[in-house]
């Protein structure tokens, strides 16, 4: 069936980033999308901590401890980058100036509701960071996640069970098995790996529609480091 590995999912998501977009990549897996952008696109990567124009990771010997992204990674700046304070950074996010954000998620509902933070991790305090701002206010919210949980339970659902991050915000979901759009008619599969439609539906907690031009989901080989 050749499900995608998690870096292949980020690769697939990265292919949809269009030229000249302003993009915020969520902490964790989404941030790796920047490694797989199509070579012809020129985009501005924004990070919630105020960096407008994130460049590649810094070489360890050239890193400045204060030049970091929202995920505390030591980064470089692209030419023409600037750094604003937190209130400007979130004014930019909340004001609709981010064209696309790509976020990790636990669950996505057929109406676009997103659950990607959780207050209920045992023995751990909650953590929300900037996820709610990005989910509620980016012009387009795309999600990267495994199609099912470790226990095999679906993550694409009629209704989220976990606490919501934002309502009706997700437009597209990239999983290891499929690329699924969230539409007024619910989930529409645009691409899927070589499994049967029934099998994909069985792993999904809400009805799937299949696009008339539904394609095979493929990605180049990318090794996932340990």
């Amino acid at each position: 069936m050749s499900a995608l590995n998690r870096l292949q999912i980020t690769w697939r998501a990265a292919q949809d980033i269009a030229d000249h977009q302003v993009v915020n990549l969520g902490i964790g897996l989404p941030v790796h999308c920047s490694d797989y952008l199509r070579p012809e696109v020129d985009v501005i990567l924004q990070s919630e901590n105020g960096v407008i124009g994130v460049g590649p990771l810094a070489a360890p010997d050239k890193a400045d401890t204060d030049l970091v992204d929202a995920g505390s990674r030591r980064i470089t700046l692209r030419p023409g980058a600037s750094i604003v304070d937190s209130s400007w950074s979130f004014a930019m996010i909340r004001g609709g100036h981010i064209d696309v954000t790509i976020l990790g998620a636990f669950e996505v509902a057929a109406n676009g509701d997103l659950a990607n933070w959780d207050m209920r991790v045992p023995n751990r305090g909650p953590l929300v960071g900037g996820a709610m701002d990005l989910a509620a206010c980016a012009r387009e919210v795309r999600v990267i996640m495994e199609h099912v949980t470790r226990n095999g339970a679906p993550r694409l659902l009629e209704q989220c069970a976990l606490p919501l991050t934002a309502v009706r915000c997700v437009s597209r979901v990239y999983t290891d098995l499929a690329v699924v759009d969230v539409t007024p008619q619910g989930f529409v599969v645009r691409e899927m790996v070589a499994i049967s439609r029934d099998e994909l539906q069985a792993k999904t907690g809400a009805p799937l529609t299949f696009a008339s031009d539904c394609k095979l989901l493929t990605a180049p080989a990318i090794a996932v480091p340990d």
Partner: protein
Amino acid sequence: MPIDKRVSLNEALDGVTDGATVFITGFGGAGFPNKLIRALRERGPKDLTLVVNSATHRYSLTHELIAADLVRKVICTAARGHDKEPSPFETRWMAGQIELEMVPQGTFTERIRAGGAGIPAFYTPVGFGTELTRGKEVRRFGARDYVMEEAITGDLALVRADIADRTGNLSFNYAQMNFGPVMASAAKLAVAEVRAVSDEPLARERIQLPGVYVDRVVAV
């Protein structure tokens, strides 16, 4: 008399009292005023409310204030420790010994900006329909639902910057800036911890926070 806001680390927190609401800068690994945090712990005021992005961050000493039981409440966007063992915040929170107000990060910074900008409350779409805004006033403008959020003001801001001058103008190193401007603006007393104080006034292009907002500067 020429304005001169330089003080020693000893004097930096003079006047801070029990029950104070304290802003602490820092996010993403940059901009933690760790010398001032430790000076605050040593001074030992009780029943503090901390307004800080993370209750626990690898590079911040905020957790020391919590471990010393000086803190009654934390207003933050992240309350998760990074070690296998629960953090000082998490153990106290789970035991019901410390209060937590979780705020989405953009709402967090905008509420603080509002506090410094004379705005008592504003509406935001962020958090609508989620647990974090339960009980808050919801209002529709146009086709969308918004939540009313109130300003946060405080007694003390601990701000990390790179360079100051004697009039309190601040320049930040890269992403050190984060919450510095809004937190300084919303506090009755803003104290900046800097790498160095310039004898000459900072050039206009370098000033990222006017000294009007800064009461004391400490070179560390």
